């Protein structure tokens, strides 16, 4: 059973130079959620004939694409042993600021009316800056990541309300909505984007020195330092990438919804953590894989879809959703036999 031992155990497993482990996409631990997904697919198919149609399943993927990017970001940050709660505010604020800078004041803009094509880079830049600022407080001021990003969650949410004046922004440039709205080869672009980014993430985290160093830092910072890894640089980079991914998720969501509401992203961080943790990402850092996190996103999406198709009474919706998430956790614990962290 060497497979179960392999790359998940942190610092000791940075690959020896020259010899890379053979390509194995789904390792044992990663497959923990596959039984849960299969069961959900079977249950869904039995409950409603529409469930297994491509239209419906593509809908699930599209609806989960923004969440999946947040989970990708959070998974990498958790693997590095840090926390970022502010992602749920970044997903709303980054697009709001970018749009407010380009639209006229009559559409609740800030009056700058910059060129419309600037909206996309501005949005991504905002995400990067929020990530960088988190990094500054966590690394240079040596503050707890949990509290720093909790403070940022509140601050950035407040900035969102302040900049938008609490209004929904309706007038969005077409270029900004392109990624979230268009389809390519029958699949929504947003699904392509999140799949592509997950594949890149999986490859980098499994086969590249830079990616492996995330596990090293998260598993044992001191050992990582001793091994010559510039740990602060790794953490900072991951936080910035996290902010950019959240901003990108905000763009996808804006394209899907056609406007930015004042509560976009509010409460989303709970789903992000639920998906990451049922996907096998450890809250203590150094463990878990992106494939697992992706499975977590799918599980959540399928649960929501089945509840919607069966038109569960609104008063009980959240209770049932919560119980099914707990069941998925138990199932993944039983199928792998490993203690959850």
């Amino acid at each position, binding site marked *: 059973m060497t497979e179960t031992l392999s790359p998940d155990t942190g610092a000791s497993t940075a690959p020896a130079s020259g010899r890379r482990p053979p390509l194995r996409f789904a390792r044992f631990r990663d497959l923990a959620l596959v039984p849960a997904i299969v069961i959900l697919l079977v249950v869904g198919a039995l409950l409603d004939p529409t469930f297994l149609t491509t*239209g419906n399943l593509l809908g699930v993927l599209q609806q989960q694409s923004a969440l999946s990017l947040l989970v990708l970001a959070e998974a990498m940050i958790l693997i590095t042993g840090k926390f970022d709660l502010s992602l749920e505010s970044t997903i709303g604020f980054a697009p709001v600021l970018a749009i407010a800078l380009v639209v006229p004041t009559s559409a609740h803009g800030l009056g700058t009316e910059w060129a419309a094509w600037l909206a996309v880079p501005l949005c991504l830049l905002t995400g990067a800056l929020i990530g960088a600022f988190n990094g500054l407080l966590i690394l240079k001021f040596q503050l707890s990541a949990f509290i720093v990003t909790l403070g940022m969650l509140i601050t950035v949410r407040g900035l969102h309300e302040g900049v938008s004046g609490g209004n929904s922004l309706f007038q969005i440039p077409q270029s900004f909505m392109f990624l979230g709205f268009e389809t390519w080869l029958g699949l929504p672009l947003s699904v392509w984007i999140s799949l592509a980014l997950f594949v890149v993430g999986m490859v980098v985290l499994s086969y590249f020195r830079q990616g492996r160093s995330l596990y090293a830092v998260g598993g044992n910072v001191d050992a990582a330092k001793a091994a010559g890894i510039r740990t602060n640089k790794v953490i900072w980079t991951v936080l910035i990438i996290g902010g950019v991914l959240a901003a990108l998720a905000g763009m996808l969501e804006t394209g*899907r*919804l*056609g406007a930015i509401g004042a509560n976009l992203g509010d409460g989303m961080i709970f789903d992000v953590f639920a998906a990451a943790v049922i996907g096998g990402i450890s809250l203590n850092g150094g463990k878990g894989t992106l494939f697992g996190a992706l499975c977590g996103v799918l599980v959540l999406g399928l649960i929501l879809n089945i509840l919607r198709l069966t038109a569960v009474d*609104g008063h009980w*919706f959240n209770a049932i959703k919560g119980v099914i998430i707990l069941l998925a956790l138990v199932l993944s614990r039983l199928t792998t036999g490993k203690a959850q962290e």
Partner: protein
Amino acid sequence: MVPVRSSIKTVATVATVVLAAAACGQQSGGGTADGNAKVGVDFPRADSDFWNSYIKYVPQFGKELDVNLMPSTNSQNKVENLVANVQTLQGQGAKAIVMAPQDTGAIATTLQRLEQQKIPVVTVDTRPDSGKVYMVVRADNKAYGEKACKFLGEKLGKKGKVVEFQGALSSVNGRDRSEAFAKCMKDNYPEITVFEEPTDWEGSKAASALQTRLNQHPDIKGIYMQAGGVFLAPTLQVLRSTNHLLPAGDPNHIAIVSNDGIPQEFEAIRKGEIDATVSQPADLYAKWALFYAKAALEGKTFKPGPTDHESTIVDVGNGNLEDQLPAPLVTKDNVDDKALWGNQIGK
């Protein structure tokens, strides 16, 4: 019977507040028949298009009606903030309070305290479950649900499938609209199937629900959204991406009724993308709330019955009066009416 201990506590609170007011150097007269005394306004939230319009109208009508307005507070949709804000306003010398408690139960003790101190309260948009208020200013949210139901029912020829985006079920207005819509559908149009989608007022949840439902039932013919501000753009975007966005008049057009009456909804009605909305009178809310606050300070009293502004004052029990403002249904026929507040702002 009020237990002794709690009345001692109340006396203590009163004393503290009086001391606080005196300490701040505010004039502390009895406040009878002084139309110029200070009026404190608390706004319920800052993140909805409807309430933002209300927030804009308050100072405007304050000037028009010559009300001595204090700087307003905002309780961010939380009743504990509202309680604290009211205390602050009182401390700053407010002699009348205008508030819009979104939690109609938990405000009871605050109302009791204000009554003991002879500070009249006008509530906007919601009617408190218990406690004394001078006047409730609101449009009947149950009527929103009913108007939407009747419009869709007739439009669809009394049969077919309808999707309903419910607001947060924990909010009284969301609940009122949902219950009235459900009851009206059941009583009048039993052949219409209603899919109730809980959304917590979130556009993202509404979009996902609609996409799923359209896959499941491609023959959906009607949509009722309980708040245009949050649901309009996501709904249109989903219909656009699934090729369901057809102008009114097309045989496959999906009939859409909304609530709120913001300018974007009017725009969509003109384009034929949606069919109707119920205009919730943000301007009248602000105007009549301040009117009654001033009237209370001047010592006026009101009786149930029709008013001079096309509304009716009704006795809602508890000795409380409610001025039920009209909330007109806006369709293509009257969408350009200048009197609608949605046509007055942003121009």
